[in-house]
């Protein structure tokens, strides 16, 4: 009995990631809304199943007559060599501003690692941050440079995670500091990387 060999052979032609001119790797299976409002810095990886809500941005006010309409606003901007792992949700937070509900543009720095299944709703994330899997970053929290968020952490709304600290728990508490030399030592070998360090080798290894 001959079976049609179609379904498996047909798919293998396509690659998992689409690579842009600046080296961003975006999975074909990511769910991206509002592409025009998303900025990727280059060499950034968006893995499969990531929900990126670029459509949730500040709506330009109704333009007064004679005035030119502003170019579209950015909802999510992600820096260089940042890795967003599978099934993560990135959605800009909302707050009351001048009596109106508006979405706050979200900024994610360079060399940030975001673990699988995380939920990111923070106002800003600085560079060299490590976010573990299943972590929930509630609306309007701020994560400062070089900090580490342990897996399964819930960062409460509006919390500021200071630079160089380790936070964990539900709700998140400061558990300690990352210590000297965190993020150092990677990049010696090819495909070698450390938390909080340069993620370029990791990005390069993802195909």
């Amino acid at each position, binding site marked *: *009995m001959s079976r*049609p060999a179609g379904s498996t052979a047909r798919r293998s032609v396509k690659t998992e990631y689409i690579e842009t001119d600046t080296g961003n790797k975006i999975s074909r299976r990511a769910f991206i809304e509002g592409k025009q409002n998303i900025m990727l810095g280059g060499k950034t990886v968006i893995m499969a199943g990531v*929900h990126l809500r670029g*459509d949730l941005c500040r709506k330009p006010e109704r333009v007064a007559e004679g005035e030119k309409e502003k170019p579209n606003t950015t909802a999510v901007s992600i820096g260089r060599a940042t890795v967003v792992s599978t099934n993560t*949700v990135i*959605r800009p937070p*909302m707050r009351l501003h001048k009596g109106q*509900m508006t979405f706050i543009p979200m900024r994610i720095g360079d060399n940030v690692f975001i673990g699988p299944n995380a939920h990111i709703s923070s106002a800003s994330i600085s560079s060299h941050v490590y976010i573990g899997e299943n972590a929930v970053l509630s609306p309007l929290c701020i994560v400062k440079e070089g900090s580490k968020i342990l897996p399964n952490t819930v960062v409460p709304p509006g919390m500021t995670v200071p630079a160089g600290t380790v936070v964990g728990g539900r709700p998140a508490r400061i558990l300690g500091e990352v210590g000297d030399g965190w993020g150092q030592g990677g990049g010696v070998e090819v495909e070698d990387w450390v938390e909080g360090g340069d993620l370029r080798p990791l990005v390069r290894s993802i195909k």
Partner: protein
Amino acid sequence: MTTKPDPPSTRQSSTVVPLVKPTCKIHPNATVADKAHLLGSHTISIDSNTIIHPQARLNASHGNISIGAGSIVAEKSVVGLSSEPDDEDSNITIGSDVSIESGAVIQARKVGDNCTLGTNCKVGKGVVLGKWCTVAALCEVGEGEVLEDYTVVFGEGRKGRRVDGVVRERREVREVRRRGMEMEREVLRGIVVDSKMKWMG
């Protein structure tokens, strides 16, 4: 030749459009995103001003789903029973002004008005939530649990349940919350592109 898969059906399964469309009763004021997934063979009813985000899943394979007025269902959340229910009552009723945040998995029998179901929380089968309940992010409500009005779930077991006295006693707090929700809906209505006609067909 019975084992041979039907060629058209295999091709269909990889696309977004489900083979069986549920019967949908969507209020003209509701907003259902184009990329929302409404699955199953039972009835899904969505009341006025409710917003269903893209990639939200309403699974009516094992029972009817009804969502009250002014609710928000965020992306990646799943509403609906995952498997065959044990008893007769397999319907899911969600009240009005309920906020279901992203990644929440809701299989409850009834969710009261003004509830907040946090990010990546799980609400098991047969659960009955009262009014103004809050399930915090990553928390779980086990099968068959019944929670009274104003309960906050923030951990496991009875230690992780508490009644929110502020919301219960203060009418103005509830009023502020309600207004915040209303403003949120107002903004979202301008952003989420409505395509309920796709489901009404």
